[in-house]
Every structure is written in structure tokens, then in C-alpha cells.
């Protein structure tokens, strides 16, 4: 167990010291989500009726959940590169804790996820987003956000190990998760959708995540969403972390 913690820390450190050396990654974390916020707020926002809530207040918790779910992309692409460049072979030949390569990656994602969440919140505040909740709830919102992001990092870890190229890792993640985030309450109220989509949106974990964030940050009625969101995140983690570690152990991918 001590090995697991030390080795995870070593790998996390490795993934973090390279960040400032790859500025294009930092840009992907920050510029792209800002662009999306501005697009939705100013291009689509005027046409979307969110009842008593200002659209910017409705949008920020939604878009921040979408963004955090994709934070694990760095893990998918990075792991895939490690597989193809033989680094995974080297790690697997070392007497290190088996899950550490993946755990180190996903832990490093928490840091980058936190940074990008802060950038989004600041952008939101600049264009008019206002928290309407006690400080404890706001902090709790950040914690929930990071938990959701961490769970999805493991989904992407598996994608990174299974995919044959970084490009396919990219498109697998995109095709699987992007529609899920849109058919939810993230950008528009599901009540405006056709019945089939609406039924799907209502049970979509993204709806639960987003509504939990709204409950914590803008004080919309909680209705148990927060615990529902925690449970969903833990379930995703409990399913995908063992799958990814098993994949890593057996032999790192094709190619």
C-alpha cells in the first residue's frame, strides 16, 4: 500500500512537471471551454428560456460539468502515447505498484481539472454568473466537481489503453460522452425536449451531476441530487478503475 501511494505520487509528479512544457495542453484546458461559455451565453443563450433562472446562472454549472468530464482526455491521449512509445513496457518491467501508472495520471488530472474549473468560474463571473449559496456549498460543489472529473479520468484511462491510436482515443471519448452531455439538463431544460430524449435526459447521470451542481451553487432545490451525483460518480469509478487496471496488467494494448 505504501508502494502504491509513493509510486502514484511519482507518476503524478511526472505528469505535472511536463504540463508547463506542453503549453498547447494548457490552452486546450482553458481557451476552448471559455469559447464554449461565450458561445452559449451570447449566441444561443438569448433563445433559451430557463424560467426564473438567468441563463448564465443556468449555463455555468452545466458547462463546467461537461468540461470536467472531458478533463480525462489528457489521460487517454497521454496513456495511449505511453503505450506506443514503449514507456508502459518500461513501467510494467519495474517493481512498482501495478495501478500506480494509471492512478498517477488520474491524480494529475485532478490538478488540471481544478485549474480549468477555476478558469471557467472566473469567466462565468465576468459575464454575470453569481453564486447564490453558502460558502460551504460552493466548496462542496468544487469537491463534487473534482470527484466527477476523477471518475471520468478512469473512463478515459481505459479508452487510452484500448484505443489503437491517440486519434481514435480522441474520437472514442468524444463520440461516447459528448452526446451524453448534451442530452441532459446541462444546456437546456429537458422539459423542452421531445418525450424520448426527455425520458433519457431525466435518467442521464449528467442531468443528476448538473442539477446537483446547481443545487450547490445557485441554490435550486436539492431534491437529493447531490447524493445521487456522489453515488453515480462512485459507481463509475468502481466500474472503470478495475477495468482499466486489469487492462494495464494483462498487456498494454495493441500496436
Amino acid at each position, binding site marked *: 500500500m505504501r*508502494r502504491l501511494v*509513493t*509510486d502514484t505520487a*511519482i507518476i503524478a509528479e*511526472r505528469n505535472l*512537471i*511536463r504540463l508547463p*512544457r*506542453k503549453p498547447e495542453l494548457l490552452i486546450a484546458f482553458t481557451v476552448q471551454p471559455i469559447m464554449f461559455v461565450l458561445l452559449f451565453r451570447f449566441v444561443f443563450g438569448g433563445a433559451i428560456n430557463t424560467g426564473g433562472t438567468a441563463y448564465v446562472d443556468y449555463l455555468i454549472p452545466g458547462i463546467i460539468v461537461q468540461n470536467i468530464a472531458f478533463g480525462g482526455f489528457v489521460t487517454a491521449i497521454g496513456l495511449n502515447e505511453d503505450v506506443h*512509445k*514503449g*514507456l508502459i*513496457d*518500461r*513501467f*510494467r*518491467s*519495474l*517493481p*512498482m505498484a501495478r495501478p500506480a501508472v494509471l492512478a498517477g495520471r488520474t491524480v494529475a488530472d485532478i490538478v488540471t481539472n481544478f485549474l480549468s474549473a477555476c478558469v471557467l468560474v472566473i469567466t462565468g463571473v465576468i459575464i454575470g454568473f453569481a453564486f447564490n449559496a453558502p460558502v460551504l456549498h460552493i466548496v462542496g460543489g468544487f469537491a463534487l466537481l473534482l470527484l466527477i472529473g476523477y471518475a471520468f479520468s478512469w473512463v478515459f484511462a481505459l479508452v487510452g489503453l484500448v484505443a489503437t491510436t491517440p486519434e481514435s482515443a480522441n474520437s472514442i471519448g468524444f463520440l461516447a460522452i459528448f452526446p451524453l452531455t448534451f442530452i441532459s439538463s446541462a444546456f437546456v431544460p429537458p422539459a423542452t425536449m421531445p418525450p424520448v430524449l426527455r425520458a433519457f435526459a431525466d435518467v442521464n447521470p449528467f442531468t443528476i451531476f448538473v442539477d446537483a451542481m446547481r443545487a450547490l451553487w445557485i441554490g435550486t432545490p436539492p431534491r437529493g441530487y447531490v447524493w445521487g451525483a456522489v453515488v453515480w460518480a462512485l459507481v463509475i469509478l468502481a466500474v472503470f478503475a478495475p477495468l482499466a487496471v486489469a487492462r494495464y496488467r494483462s*498487456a498494454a494494448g*495493441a*500496436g
Partner: protein
Amino acid sequence: MSPPAEREAAIVVRGVTKSFGDVRALGGVDLDVPRGTVLGLLGPNGAGKTTLVRILTTLLTPDAGTATVVGYDVVGDAAALRHRIGLAGQYAAVDENLTGLENLTMVGRLYGAPRAAAKRRGAELLERFDLTDAGGRVTSTYSGGMRRRLDLAAALVAKPTVVFLDEPTTGLDPRSRLALWETIEALVSEGTTVLLTTQYLDEADRLADSITVIDHGQVIASGTSDELKDRVGGERVEVVLEDPGDAERAAAALGQMAAEAPSAADGVVSAPVRTRRGVIAEAVGLLSAEGIGMDDINLRRPTLDDVFLSLTGHAAEEPTETEEEEPR
């Protein structure tokens, strides 16, 4: 996990098989490598060399058969074995976004060394591999040869008893290759056991104490370089003809003195002989008597190329640029 006996062989492989789907990568391989020696595993692309190295370094489990490295079973004692081996792969497995020193320090710490000790060891290895000046630079700026040296250094971080080098010089320019050979020779002189895979015959010839030739997942020959060459039939007289059209007549003439039927190709006739003594004079005599003109004549030992050709029926291919060894 009892400590292995000191005098034991470093690597013992018995009947190891491995298939990937329908592709049989290894079909029952046996291998013995005594401690402190270099075994050259020689074979063309797809022969199963990398698969065997991956099994011996605990990256793959064999379908059948057993393999032990310094007494540790590669499956049952994998965790303990990993402390004692170093692997330098076909791809230079270094993190491109870290500096040379950061790479080595990371590997040292993953072997369990404290940070300061890992850093010291890293600096020591950089010095030894002539990378001290580049040690603070991100490795994406390194040349191919520098990356290979760093990769090899990473394999040596924990002072392993056995080092596996999977095609260590594939893709390197001749000068970097020579430098890497010298490094490997220095390593061996310190008593490290090395298993080296290569498709370069000259590399095996120069570095290996004994050579195992594998093709299609089977061991087809093993022995020292000299033993393998003797198998192909020792020495031969080679004559370069003035007129390639004389090849058939020349072969017939030399047939009177040859141990086996001479062969002819591209205006060169090659005749295996039993002894060195007087054979050149005899050959010149026989050919002159037939009025056949010669540009050159010499006596030569077979190369590993000849060995390979006679064992496998095909030449050892030149490595292609895009290495796709076998299913991984």
C-alpha cells in the same frame, strides 16, 4: 521466493510457447544463458525475439512452458524478479517531456530508491553515458543515439543482474551504433548477464558469447559464432571472374578440389574447401588450365550471413523503417 543459488544459469527457458490469436509467435523455445555471458538472439523480423524478451521481462505470460531468470520464475516470482532485471526496448522508452536526469531519477524512484539517491545514481549514469551536458535538457531535443543511450542508462539504474536489450541499435547511424556497442561491452566486462536481440549479424558476432538463431518461433541453431560458422562448412575459395559467362566452366573446374559442389552467382564462384593449405594456388592452377580469367581470388570464413542463409533458407532481412515486430 528463496534466493537463487549463485552458480545457477542466469536464464533458463523450457518449452515456452506463445500465440496471439492464430499467430504462433513462439513454438516451444528452450534456452540457457550462463551468468556473466552475452547471448545474442538472432532472427529476422517476426521471428519471435521480442515476444521472448517480453516473456522474460514479465510483460507477457507464456501459454505453456517455464522460464526462470536468476532463479525466479517469470510468472510466479514476477514481482521479485522485476527488482533484478533491466530492459531497454526496441523503442527508446524515455519520457520526451522530461529531462534526461528527470527520466533516470523517476525510474530510480520507481525501483524504490529515495529521491536523493535516485538523483545521484541518475547523474552517475549520465556521466557514464556521456550525457552529462544534455542531462538538464528535455529529451525530445535528443538525437536518436542519445535517446538510446538514455534508454540503456534507464535499464541500468538499479544495477540489474540481467539486462535485456531488444534490438538496441535498430535505426541508429553507424557511429552511434559503434558507440553503443562499446557501452554494452563495458557493461559485460563488469559481469552483467546480457540477452541481446538483433537482426544484425555483425552485432551478434561482435557482442555475443553465444548465439541462438530463431526463426518462426523456433530455435533453429545455437552455439558460438565460430561453431555456427563451422556448421556451414568452414572455409571457401571465392573467385571473381573476368567474364561472368565463364561461371559454369569455372564451377566445374573448381569442383575437382572442392568439398562440396561450388556455387556461382553474379560472376563470383564460391567453392567450399577442407583445408587452407595451398588451395589458392590449386584453384588458380585449375582455372588457368581451363583458360578462365580471374579478377580476384580469396579465401574466406563464412559470415553469420552465410550461416543464416543456410539455416533458414532465406537471408536475414534488412530491418525496415517502420518496425512492427510482431503482435504485442
